[in-house]
């Protein structure tokens, strides 16, 4: 079974979601639910930190696209923290996600 952890730290204006482990078809729906619950209030910015994510396939990218379109409708800014050169970064770049959210190499 594929395991992922979703850790959420929320402040008044921002939510930071750190993903670790692996995301694929087996656990994508569960991860998506956890992320949806994490953004229940109305922050100004949501950052998703993929630094500690060991593996993600296109099911993971779908989660990010779904999140991006939801946040766009709510006028909430989305940023992704993805280490340069990682396979996750390559996958995100291949999928054309950069038009939807800023990609940052490291967190603040």
């Amino acid at each position, binding site marked *: 079974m594929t395991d992922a952890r979703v850790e959420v730290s929320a402040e008044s204006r921002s939510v930071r979601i750190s993903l670790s482990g692996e995301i694929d078809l087996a656990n994508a729906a569960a991860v998506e639910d956890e992320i949806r619950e994490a953004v229940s209030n109305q922050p100004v910015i949501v950052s998703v930190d993929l630094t500690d994510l060991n593996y993600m396939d*296109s099911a993971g990218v779908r989660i990010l696209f779904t999140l991006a379109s939801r946040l766009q409708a709510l006028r909430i800014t989305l940023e992704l923290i993805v280490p340069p050169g990682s396979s996750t970064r390559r996958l995100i770049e291949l999928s054309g996600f950069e038009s939807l959210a800023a990609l940052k190499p490291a967190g603040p």
Partner: protein
Amino acid sequence: MTYLDSGTSMPNHGADSDSDESVLSLELRTTASTVSIPTIRTVAADLAARADFDLDSIDDLRMAVDDLCAMLVRIAAADATLYCTFTVRPERIEVAAETDVDDLADPLPTGSFAWRVLQCLADEVGATSVPAEPGRRGRVRITLAKDALTAPQP
């Protein structure tokens, strides 16, 4: 598409090109379930690493094989088997996977997001299907090929 004759599983057994000692062939047969996918993608990455693929190509093949299997698992019939064959050639790995599907008008998932990702990750991608008929399940087969070196990004 002779491989679809009833009773046959995978194609090209003993084909001349595959009897070469420099070509390694490996077959996995699993239940068509998400539980199988981590193992299959790990095998893919291991084969690529042993074949001296560069790191980006190993990552690409791992994700491509994952997506390929995930597509088939999504559309597989209940209790279907997933067949996955790897052919490791010098500088190139070919993957063919197939599974049975229930009656679907157009079971090829070639318009999906995962399919577009697959096309980006692999050097060649193909899919074929045979529709179900009364008393016989359909079958979908997806193939990909990945070269050892990732072409430099422009």
